[in-house]
């Protein structure tokens, strides 16, 4: 257990440390509080390290072995370190004249010698002060609950080998073939005679698995790759929290992040959740984090670049990731010079990732058991089939969302909250988040409309598409809850919040 725990933490650090270094290059991310900066850092780290290894292996034939992995991880970490040192030196030089200023007045001592609190009182006061600094008791309680849930997922991940369906059928098996060959163009993938499922699926997460296993020389049966997937859960919750803070107040943002954490089938033990080795949770993180940067109020070019790296990762994570990345990019389009620069900065890494994916995929033959979506799409039966298949799909979709044992009424709550807080959904930014929610669901319906067994496909994939839409959906919930809060208690804070929302629009 100790070795697996250390290996799991090492695997997460392999991506989090370089990613944290990368956040130093992006002012908006650098200024985030530590947990949120770490979350963005982890996502950027997976994108940069695994993405670079994928590109180096395919385009330059660099073997996926420890020297390449450590060099790829060290480069962004060092870049961040240097950027941080330079920034601090500049800040120090700029602040030097202030040394001439008179020292600040010593703050008055409020408590007299007789009023010095005892140790227990100091602890209570310390906790109260911490809670106050964090925006009240609700956010602190939510943070503790979410942390415990994430810790539970991590504990399960380091204790057990993978037992999910797609993980063993496709992603982890591909990772083993790639690791053995030392290249993403492994002979098993290239030769059609060998049996492999989803041979043409994008390889970012399998490459991340290989990087972690190679970096630490881990046993092929090690649970270490599972820690990589488990770490996406806190990243998702922190991205949700960061994005939801713009829609609602701090307590509401914390509450909706906890809602997401509590929706266990959504993010934890359902197909695609954090306890699996599916790529849906990573895709949800990349898509949601990129949207949060692209729809943010400050149209900085550097935000566009960070969003572009995340969109590139989305495109290299799953087939539908490319479509979602293009949708997110389109949603980030706004007129104005700074906004166009942000858009262009996001488009470049995405275009490079799509070119890389197309080049790699061109050499991989499709296998018999893979779904020929492109062929089905070209058959041109999209619209008539959508109508014909609706009768089979809708009952399954409703049944899955209505299972109380799985969802505990999550999907009863969502429409009620969105309806009650619908005024908030009319804002321009909220309308973009609405389209972002619709993206994965539209892809799901399109797939069901052309697939020969739509009921089966809906049964096994619907919740995964819902998960992909998690960040925009929960952000909308935060907006709606903030609106409901304004109805129920129109305080000065709520009015300020409404004004801030309008200003951001």
């Amino acid at each position, binding site marked *: 257990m100790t070795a697996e725990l250390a290996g799991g933490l090492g695997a997460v650090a392999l991506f989090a440390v370089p990613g944290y270094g990368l956040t130093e290059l992006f002012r908006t991310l650098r200024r985030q509080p530590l947990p949120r900066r770490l979350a963005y850092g982890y996502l950027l780290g997976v994108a940069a390290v695994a993405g670079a290894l994928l590109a180096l292996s395919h385009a330059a034939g660099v073997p996926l072995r420890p020297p390449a992995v450590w060099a790829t991880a060290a480069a962004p970490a060092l870049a961040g370190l240097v950027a941080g040192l330079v920034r601090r030196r500049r800040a120090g030089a700029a602040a030097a004249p202030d040394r001439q200023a008179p020292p600040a007045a010593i703050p008055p001592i409020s408590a007299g010698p007789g009023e010095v609190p005892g140790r227990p009182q100091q602890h209570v006061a310390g906790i109260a002060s911490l809670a106050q600094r964090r925006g009240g008791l609700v956010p602190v309680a939510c943070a503790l609950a979410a942390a*415990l849930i994430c810790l539970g997922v991590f504990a399960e991940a380091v204790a057990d080998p993978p037992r999910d369906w797609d993980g*063993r*059928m496709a992603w982890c098996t591909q990772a083993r073939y790639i690791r053995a060959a030392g290249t993403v163009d492994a002979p098993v993938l290239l030769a059609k005679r060998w049996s492999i499922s989803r041979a043409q699926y994008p390889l970012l997460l399998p490459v991340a698995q290989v990087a972690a296993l190679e970096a630490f020389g881990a046993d092929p049966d090690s649970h270490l790759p599972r820690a990589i997937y488990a770490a996406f859960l806190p990243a998702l919750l922190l991205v949700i929290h960061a994005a939801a803070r713009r829609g609602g107040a701090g307590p509401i943002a914390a509450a909706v992040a906890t809602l997401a954490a509590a929706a*266990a089938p959504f993010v934890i033990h359902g197909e695609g959740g954090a306890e699996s080795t599916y790529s849906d949770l990573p895709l949800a993180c990349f898509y949601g984090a990129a949207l949060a940067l692209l729809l943010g109020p400050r149209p900085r070019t550097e935000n566009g670049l960070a969003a572009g790296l995340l969109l590139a990762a989305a495109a290299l994570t799953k087939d539908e990731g490319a479509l979602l990345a293009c949708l997110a990019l389109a949603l980030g389009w706004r007129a104005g010079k700074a906004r166009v620069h942000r858009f262009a900065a996001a488009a470049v890494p995405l275009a490079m990732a799509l070119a890389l994916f197309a080049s790699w995929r061109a050499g991989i033959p499709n296998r018999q058991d893979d779904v020929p979506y492109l062929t089905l799409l070209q058959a041109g039966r999209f619209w008539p089939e959508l109508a014909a298949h609706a009768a089979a799909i809708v009952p399954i979709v409703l049944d899955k969302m209505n299972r109380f044992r799985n969802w505990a009424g*999550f999907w009863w*709550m969502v429409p*009620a909250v969105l309806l009650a807080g619908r005024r908030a959904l009319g804002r321009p930014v909220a309308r973009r988040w609405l389209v972002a929610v619709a993206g994965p669901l539209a892809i799901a319906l399109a797939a069901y409309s052309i697939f020969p067994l739509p009921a089966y496909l809906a049964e096994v994939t619907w919740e995964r598409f819902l998960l992909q839409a998690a960040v925009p959906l929960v952000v909308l919930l935060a907006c*709606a809850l903030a609106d409901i809060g304004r109805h129920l208690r129109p305080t000065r804070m709520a009015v300020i919040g409404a004004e801030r929302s309008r200003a951001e629009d």
Partner: protein
Amino acid sequence: MRRGLPGRVLDAAAVGLVVFFLAVALPQALWRAWGEISQAVQSDESLAAARARVYGEEYTRAIDQIRAALPADEAYLLVEGGSPGSGGAYWVRYDLAPRPAAFVGQLQDLTGGARLRRRLSANLRHVVVAFNAGEPPRLYERYRFVEEIERRARKGPSDR
């Protein structure tokens, strides 16, 4: 900002459903997380023991035997002996990776030696038959597997 009665009812219903969801789902999620953490803290398993616990002892033992018999770069022929869609062949392929697998098909479709030889196009020495999840796979020399299929074909379909 003040709302009419329907609006207030809708607000109350929305807040009520949020509270209800949190009241039901959050304790479950926390309890589950606590269980996972305490189980992991108490556990002192090796990787092999964890595999045996999760995948089954017989299955894990059979996989280890096949791994010992087949070098990591030796390819094999994979036959699905369990019910279609049980996933057994996927799990065996995963556990035996990076050994390349050439999928032959369902065991029930291999009804005679001639038919089998047509399917065994790849010149590989070993055949692995996977069964339903948790059932141990079997390793055969190719010629023995062909003999076995021919013997079964002679005996008739009842002896499958």
